[in-house]
């Protein structure tokens, strides 16, 4: 499967790189082929560790020279002490967790900061596809039909911000990308943002 638009696949790279400090310790949960970590290593000199469940992804990380751990995200998080990493990254992975709240909180324990990037399912096109056509959005990043995809638990910008408020998770920075996942905007994000990236920290 070759992405038609690798830029879209790497939508959050520049934003995350902007937030990461030089030489930080970064844990990327659901790191895929290790492209983000390789990028952060090259641009920011981070000590980055990836986690993924799929052996072929691990192979790619090894080839890139990215330290990687094949296994379950929750198990890996449990093995680290508090604040073991400067930053824990969840890039398009929160939707796939069995218990997103528990995993995000573990992320906030292990990382001093947490970065979450996700597709906004409140984006008008995603709504339209559901409302008018009765179908979910298929794009370059999610090219597979439902029967060939991992189970996902889609959510919107509004839902995520509600969650952070209820659970007293402080949102440091946020960036909304438009439908092309490139240009940044702030107007009516729940309707107009195609992709959202948050920089979080525990409030306490």
């Amino acid at each position, binding site marked *: 499967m070759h992405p038609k638009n*690798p830029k879209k696949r790497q939508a959050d790279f520049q934003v995350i790189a902007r937030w990461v400090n030089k030489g930080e310790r970064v844990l990327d949960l659901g790191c895929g082929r290790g*492209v983000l970590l390789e990028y952060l290593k090259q641009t920011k000199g981070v000590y980055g560790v990836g986690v993924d469940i799929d*052996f072929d992804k691990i*192979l790619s990380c*090894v080839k890139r020279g990215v*330290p990687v*751990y094949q296994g379950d995200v929750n198990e890996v998080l449990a093995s680290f002490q508090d604040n073991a990493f400067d930053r824990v990254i969840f890039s398009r992975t929160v939707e796939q967790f069995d218990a997103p709240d528990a995993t995000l909180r573990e992320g906030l324990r292990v990382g001093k900061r947490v970065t979450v990037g996700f597709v906004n399912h409140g984006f008008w096109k995603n709504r339209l596809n559901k409302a008018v056509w009765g179908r979910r959005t298929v794009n370059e990043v999610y090219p597979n039909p439902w029967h060939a995809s991992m189970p996902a638990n889609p959510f919107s910008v509004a839902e995520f911000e509600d969650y952070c408020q209820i659970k007293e998770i402080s949102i440091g920075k946020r960036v909304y990308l438009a439908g092309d996942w490139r240009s940044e905007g702030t107007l009516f994000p729940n309707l107009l943002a195609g992709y959202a990236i948050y920089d979080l920290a525990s409030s306490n």
Partner: protein
Amino acid sequence: MNDSEQTAQISEEGEVGIVEYQDFVSTEPFHFESGGSIPELRLRYETYGHLNEAKDNAILICHALTGDHHCAGVYSMDERKPGWWNFMIGPGKPINTSEYFVICSNALGGCQGSSGPGSINPETGKPYNLDFPKLTVRDMVRAQSQLIDSLGIDRLHAVVGGSMGGMQTFQWAIDYPDRVGRYIALACAARHNAQTIAFNDTGRQAIITDPGWQNGNYTAENGPDQGLAVARMMAHITYLSDVGLEHKFGRKRRASAKEHFDIEFEVESYLRYQGQSFVTRFDANSYLYLTKALDRFDLHAPESLDDTLSGVTAPGLVVGFTSDWLYPPQGNRELVESLLRLGKDASYAELAMDYGHDSFLVRAPKLYDLIRRFLHR
């Protein structure tokens, strides 16, 4: 950046062909970690490929408990069975001998030509037997380091090993951080769990309670053969998996069983053959010494795993196998978890294979790909 993956470059695969072993002999006394010494050290080893001018392309292979220095090639063209890791080592193979100089030595304490309980004490002219000092994995590695010195190699490109070899690999990374470029440990453990110690001791008891053992002072003709064969049969089961055994044998029977306790099932025949053939190639006292060294190996001591691994500098790769119930994935994972806690460059991969602990010895393209890439990164 392109996220698409190029398939690993695979040059034409070839065989290392006919090989010969060599002996490294040091006439300096060798002192053991737990006390005691032997007046000279002997390690039998093989090498494949060529050491480059910079002497920086050497890879040390560490074998498992009952393995030996013969890991690739054949001794003659009539030999049907090549070295134990011939799939892995050769021109164009994952451990590419066109590129790397590969060294494998019979472990200290072994019985295939290296100093061990069965070798002759030059001071008495008799076998050491139980006078051989208590052995540790650290001793094995220090003996190997003397061999590496003798070859003029300062720093190894990589140290690679499975099972006991994996433990040696870690010991290398811990004891000689400046001499290890990277390391790969397969089907490994930071220490034996109670079940593994239990199996080992049952094997040792089978040997020690065999009247032929004679407190270790047996002769080649009258050794504890039955005990050693039973120890091997039992250990062999722990190297496989239930699924693997079922797949290979199921309840297949032999037609020839006449007496009640004759060989009736194929799996019985297989195991008895494994036991008998082991007796012809392995020394009972070596088996006792080596299994004891493994049971005592403990990277969690004296302080903690994190403390023991804190001085490691080389990048490491640990590979676990899902069906391995002797050195289960969890024991492999904890090594990498510790290294990552310490901020080291370490990776963990897990392969779903049905061959149990022995999975690393089986033809496995995914494992080849992983090792090839890690050696090249």
